[in-house]
Every structure is written in structure tokens, then in C-alpha cells.
């Protein structure tokens, strides 16, 4: 892109960190040697945890249902290897707290035998509802990291009559290249998955947004989409956070999603390229989501690259597959901008994990925070148009309501502000702290409201009981008095006769 063109076309928001995507992105996809054991957490998605339907000791085949979804927003979990269920217990969650998470452990029998599948030759002959049902049953969730159950989103898109499917091949996070790899190696799966999703939601066209730092992926996708004019490949400027839904929608369609609305309400639905490929496999091959491509990168990795691995594999085994040159100074699940720090490598690979980063000491060092010099870098970088420095100042002073007044709720935690801060202030940490505090406060308020309502209802009930008792007593007294009066009235009559 020429200098002039760049100047006018580059978005005003965002940052441009060193992407560190190569050489990992260029290394051919590797397949992980089958792990001896996998641990599949019941909660790998947004929504309710899945409920186990297998017993300890039970033999399972690859792709067999282990736990079914519970509630409206949930996803089932399937076996990622064939073998024996050895435990349903807790493993370390892929979360900074390192707390436990219920998981099903399978001891592999190394035969890798698939459960009988139900492939579909022509998905476009199926009713959209059937595609949605099959996607839900395959446990497909948003693989870009959001892990929202895909089928729930399809249903929403269908209900709101979405016209345009946006396929997110942005992959703006530095270091990560799993989406790049899936577009280079399996572009026809991505395109076919996108067409199946279009059929499911009733969309008429699809825009595939790919950052222009992935020319090989753009070329591969263009070729795969030659036969289907309704799927258009649209290179977008490489600018973090281009892969964020709202920013990608705006770049590709010019539409802005109102603050209180969902993307579907402006007629678009965003799905990640890896999700499209997973939908293709779920529908065409009848295979549930049990494997994914994960980027193993970072200066502590000997041979960085992308690995195709069963879900539930321990991070340690993935790192061992690529080799480590030194003990990682920092382990991250996801990208460096929005990823989750891992306390250790005994954490299972989950559906939403697009990358595992093992940083060497020099990469992991974050300079010490200094005072805010109000330079406004954060304001210029914020893709949402917020004032991070003002929000942080209010949060620092304990004035959470002040931060809410600066629209803290619109913050997408992309990390641009903290990245670009010359004083290296951990701004996102402030915002996460405040969001957590506010949601705790909101829960406490709901609870106290509920308590108050119950107490008020009790007072009303007691009053009503007392009143009814009094009325009853009064009525009985009146009846007795009436009976007595009648009796007295009857007596003299008798006397007279």
C-alpha cells in the first residue's frame, strides 16, 4: 500500500504492534502425536456448563458425546480421542486464577477410532433449522476466542433476517497465525462453511475480511472463492484490533453498531474463519468439534508453528511438541494483547484457544509503570473513542461511577491503550478491576432487592393473614349472634303456641 493511500485508508484508531507472526505462520502445519490422556472441561464456552452423560470406566470413541448442553446458551462436549473415561474431576482452568474446573479425563487407546458419523452430501437441501440443530449438536463455538455457541448466533441471525455474513479472518493479535494457517491450508473448508452458515441464517452475501499482512491467505481464499461470487474476499489494513467485531463491521460495511444493539440488528453477523471450517466439518462430515489448530509461538519456543491437536491436550505437551529453548518466563493462552496468563502448563487446550505463547524473559518484561503525562496516546489509540486516561484516573481515586460516566461499559478490553502508553500504565487492569467491582455491586444490589421484595411480601402476607383471621372471627361472631337471635326469636313463638 502506498504512503498516500495508507495515510487516507488506515483507520485512525488502534495500534500497530510488531506482529511476530513469522516464521511461525510460514511453518507447515504439524499434527500432534496422539496424547496419552486428554482432559475435557465441561465449560469451554460462554453459557451453561455441559452435563456429563458418560460414566467413569466407560469406553468412548472419538467424537462421542461426553456431556450435553444445558440451558439456552450452552454447548456439548465430545471425546477428542478414543479410549476410556478415567475420571470426572477438576483440572486447572485456563484462567489467571488457576482455580479448578470440572473436566472429563479420557485415557487414550491410541486407535483414534471415530464414532459413526452422519455426513450430509448436500447441506443446501437441508432446512436452515436442521443446520442450526446439527451445528449445536456438534458443539461448535466461536473459535476466535469469544467461544459463544455458534448455533445460538445462527438462530439470532435467522430471526433478525441478517443479510450479510462477515467472516473474520482479521487475526489482528500479534504472534497468532492459526486462522492464517486454516485459510492457507483449508480455504475450501472455510468458504464452504461460510456458505453453509449463509444458508442457515438466510444471508445473501458474505464478506471475508483478511488483514493485508497475510497475502498467502488472501490468495488461497480468493482461489477457493472463485466459484462462489456471493463470498467476497476483502483485504483490510493490518491494524489491531481489526479482528474485533465492531471494528471489522465498520471497516467492511461502513455500518456502526449502536451501543445498546447487537451486530445482527444492523443486518450483519460475524463468524471467525476457523468457526466456518468447524461448521463445514460438522455438517459435511458429521464430525463434532474435537480438534483445532493452535499456534505455538514465543521466543522460548524452539520451533514455533501451528499444531493440529485434539482438545484437552495439556499445554505442556503442546510446548514439548515444538520444543522449548528455555523455561518460559510467561505463558499466555491466546494473543499478547488480550490473552490470559497461565500459571503453569498443566492446563488443557480448550475450544477457544487460538494460541499458546511461551515468552522468553526479554519478551515478558513489562516496563515499570510511571505517572500519566496526559499525552493522549491512549485516546488516539482507543478504537471505541473512549478516554482511557480519564477512566483510569477516576478508578484510581475509587470513583467507579465517575468511570462509568466516561462509558467504561463500552470498553472492549482490547488493550490498545495500555500497549501504547509511554508510562506503561496497566490501564486494562484498572478497567477489569472496575468492571469486576461494578458487576459484584450489581449482583449485591439484585440480591438485596430480592431480599427486600421478599420481606415486603412477608409483611403484606402477615397483614393479610391477620386481616383474614379477624374477618373470619368477626363473621363467625356475627353468625353466632345471628343464630342466637334466631333461637331467641323462635322461643317466644313456641311459648305463644
Amino acid at each position, binding site marked *: 500500500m502506498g504512503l498516500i493511500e495508507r495515510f487516507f485508508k488506515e483507520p485512525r484508531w488502534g*495500534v500497530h*504492534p*510488531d506482529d511476530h507472526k513469522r516464521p511461525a505462520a510460514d511453518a507447515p502445519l504439524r499434527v500432534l502425536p496422539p496424547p496419552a490422556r486428554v482432559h475435557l472441561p465441561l465449560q469451554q464456552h460462554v453459557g451453561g456448563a455441559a452435563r456429563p452423560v458418560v460414566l467413569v470406566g466407560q469406553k468412548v470413541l472419538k467424537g462421542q458425546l461426553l456431556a450435553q448442553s444445558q440451558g439456552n446458551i450452552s454447548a456439548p462436549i465430545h471425546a477428542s480421542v478414543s479410549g476410556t473415561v478415567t475420571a470426572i474431576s477438576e483440572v486447572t482452568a485456563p484462567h*489467571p486464577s488457576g482455580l479448578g474446573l470440572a473436566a472429563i479425563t479420557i485415557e487414550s487407546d491410541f486407535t483414534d477410532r471415530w464414532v459413526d458419523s452422519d455426513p450430509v452430501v448436500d447441506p443446501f437441501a437441508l432446512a436452515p433449522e436442521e443446520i442450526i440443530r446439527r451445528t449445536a449438536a456438534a458443539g461448535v463455538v466461536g473459535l476466535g476466542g469469544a467461544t459463544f455457541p455458534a448455533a445460538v448466533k445462527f438462530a439470532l441471525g435467522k430471526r433478525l433476517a441478517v443479510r450479510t455474513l462477515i467472516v473474520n479472518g482479521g487475526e489482528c493479535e*500479534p504472534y497468532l497465525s492459526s486462522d492464517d494457517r486454516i485459510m492457507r491450508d483449508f480455504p475450501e473448508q472455510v468458504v464452504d462453511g461460510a456458505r453453509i452458515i449463509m444458508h442457515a441464517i438466510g444471508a445473501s452475501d458474505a464478506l471475508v475480511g483478511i488483514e493485508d499482512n497475510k497475502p498467502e491467505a488472501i490468495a488461497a481464499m480468493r482461489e477457493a472463492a472463485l466459484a462462489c461470487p456471493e463470498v467476497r474476499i476483502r483485504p483490510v489494513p493490518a491494524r489491531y484490533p481489526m479482528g474485533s467485531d*465492531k471494528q471489522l463491521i*465498520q471497516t467492511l460495511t461502513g455500518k*456502526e*453498531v*449502536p*451501543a*445498546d*444493539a447487537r451486530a445482527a*440488528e444492523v443486518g450483519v453477523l460475524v463468524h471467525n474463519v476457523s468457526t466456518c471450517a468447524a461448521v463445514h466439518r460438522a455438517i459435511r462430515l458429521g464430525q463434532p468439534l474435537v480438534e483445532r489448530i493452535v499456534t505455538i509461538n514465543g521466543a522460548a519456543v524452539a520451533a514455533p508453528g501451528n499444531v493440529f491437536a485434539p482438545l484437552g491436550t495439556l499445554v505442556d505437551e503442546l510446548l514439548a511438541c515444538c520444543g522449548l529453548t528455555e523455561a518460559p518466563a*510467561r505463558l*499466555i493462552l491466546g494473543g*499478547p*494483547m*488480550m*490473552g*490470559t*496468563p497461565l*500459571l503453569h502448563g498443566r492446563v488443557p487446550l480448550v475450544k477457544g484457544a487460538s494460541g499458546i505463547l511461551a*515468552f522468553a524473559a526479554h519478551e*515478558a518484561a*513489562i*516496563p515499570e*509503570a*510511571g*505517572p*500519566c*503525562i*496526559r*499525552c*493522549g*496516546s491512549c*485516546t488516539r489509540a*482507543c*478504537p*471505541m*473513542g*473512549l*478516554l482511557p486516561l*480519564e477512566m483510569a484516573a477516576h*478508578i484510581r481515586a*475509587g470513583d467507579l461511577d465517575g468511570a462509568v460516566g466516561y*462509558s467504561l461499559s*463500552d470498553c472492549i*478490553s482490547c*488493550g490498545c491503550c*495500555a*500497549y*501504547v*502508553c*509511554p*508510562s506503561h500504565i*496497566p490501564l*486494562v*487492569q484498572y478497567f477489569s*478491576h472496575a468492571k469486576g467491582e461494578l458487576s459484584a455491586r450489581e449482583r449485591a444490589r439484585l440480591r438485596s432487592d430480592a431480599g427486600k421484595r421478599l420481606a415486603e411480601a412477608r409483611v403484606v402476607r402477615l397483614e393479610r393473614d391477620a386481616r383474614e383471621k379477624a374477618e373470619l372471627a368477626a363473621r363467625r361472631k356475627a353468625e353466632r349472634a345471628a343464630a342466637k337471635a334466631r333461637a331467641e326469636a323462635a322461643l317466644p313463638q313456641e311459648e305463644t303456641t
Partner: protein
Amino acid sequence: MKPAPGDAPVAAPYAATPNSVRRVMSIVMGALAPATLFGFWLYGWPAVYLWMITIAAAALGEACCLRLMARDAGPVLLDGSAVLTGWLLAMSLPPWAPWWIGVFGGFFATVLGKQVFGGLGQNLFNPAMVGRVALLISFPVQMTAWVAPLPILAAGAPGPISGLLITLKGMQPAFDAVASASLLGFAKTEMSRGVDLAQSLLHAPLQAWYGSRPGSLGETATWLIVAGGTVMIFLGTITWHIPLSMLLGIAAPAALLHVVDPARYLDAGTHLLSGGAMLGAFFIATDYVTSPNTPRGQLVFGAGCGVLTYVIRTWAGYPEGVAFAVLLMNSMTPVIDRYIKPRIYGRNRQGSALELGK
């Protein structure tokens, strides 16, 4: 809330910009350097000494405050902000001013202009301009004693030793340096005597296009100041909003009134090239801490600085107005930031959500 201590995980991002406060300050100093060197050449050794003394005083003032607060002064001084404050102040002083002007000004700038507010990032007013205005009000004679340029290698210019004596003991009669007024001061004085510009400008102090003229270091090297400022804009250290709006704020009323009555009002070009206009627009008003942090707010701020500069120069008692204008607009910064905010994605300027279907 403080960032989580020790090994406790801190939220992402785990990548950081190579930029730092020290780098920002270094770029600003680098951009100032050519103009400063030109000033040194023009005014010789006394200017060099005054520059060093002012910077040392500013740094010492900062260090003393940090010591009083039982903080380690070393790393704070290394961020370069105190040095830059002293430097900018030195750029605005009469180059042959006595040493105690530099000491008083430097100390005043970092102690009362910055550290009493809580240090870097906390001050409401531009520290260098606080120092300059304190000096101007306290020592009006020394602060308006300009000399005509006497290049460092010219015959009759003070050498390193005699230059030091000038700084320490005051102006020596042995040198050819002619006490001279700056153009704005000259015009104001003549005007107050009833001589209009048509007459007075005929025998005004010599002005060379390249900046050889009586004035402060920052007043003489106008083109080098502009060049340094432009480099900072290209490096992204500052944005164009404040410099452009401030210069327009000076030039627009100047041009208008000059057309109305050329005998009473100086032309826009003279206004832009005189006094601290360029230094103010590129280096003083753009101070991050004391200026608004949204582009639109910066436009308002810059325009305010420019117009106030012109008003003070033209109708107030002082011939030069940049320092006062910047300080006045500094006090408006919190108000500007309160009312001028960027539009949030998905919301209108008032902050309510956009309506669907529009």
C-alpha cells in the same frame, strides 16, 4: 487500586510500546537543540552559561522536592522532564540575564510549577511558563533587558571567561553589546509615546530574516523552532492541532486589524516571527500535561492561546503575551476536557446510543 504486586497476574496486554516518557522528552529536546545552538552562536557564552544554570536549577529543584518526599530522585530526574522544563525556560529568558534569574526561574518552575502539585503529570500550569511569569513580574528590569545579537566568534564578543563574568556579575561595559529592545517591546514603547508604527518601524531594531534580532533564544531561531516542531509532528510526538490553531489565533486577528489600521497594528508576519509565538505554539502550548487531550479540545485550546497572545500583546501592558496566554488557557484545560470529548463508537456526541436504521 494499585497494580497487582509480585507474581500476581496483571491483565493483558503483555506487549508494550517501545515508546517511553524518556524517549518523548528526548525527542522534544532533540527538536529544540538546533534552535538552541543557533541561539548560542548568536549570543555567545553568556547564553550558554545561563542555559546550563537554568537547567541545573530546575533539576535541583525537582531533586530537592523528591528528597523531601523521601523518594528516589535518580529515576525521576532521568525521565528528562525537569531538564526539559529548565531548557524551555532558558529559551524564553534574555540571553545575557544574570545567573540568579536562571536559578530563581528554574527553581520556581519545578518546585512551585510542578512538584507542589504532585510532580509529573499533576501540574495544572506549564512549569516553564510559571517560572517565566514569576520572573517577569518579580524582576521586570532584568527580564526585559535584551541585547543586540553579538555572534560568538564576532570581534568584541565575550570569550568563555568574560562571558562567565557577564552571567555572574551582570553586563560589563567593556563589550560592544548594545542594549536593545525586542521588536514588540519597541513598538509598544513607541506607541505609548504617541509614535505610530508608520514612523517607529523606520528606526526599529534590526531584524534579519534568519532570526538575528534582539530577543530570547527561542525568539531568534524562529525557523529552526518551526523545523523542530515539524519533525515532532512527523514523529507523532505532538499533533498539528495546537500549533496550527495557535498560530492562526495570532495571525487572523493580526491580519484583520492590520488591514483596518496599519499605523496602529503590526502585521501578521511580524506577530508570528516575534516574541515566543513559534516556541509557544510548537513547544510550550503543546505540553501534554497542561493541554487538552482530544483533537477538538486542542483546537479550542490553541486558538485560545493564539487570540489571548494577540490581545495581550496589543492592548495589555506587556509587549509579549505567550506566557500569560498559555497559563490562562492552561486553567481552561480541565473545562475544555470536560465538555469536549471524542464521540464514542455506537453513540452520538451526547453519549446516547445511536438509533437503529440510521
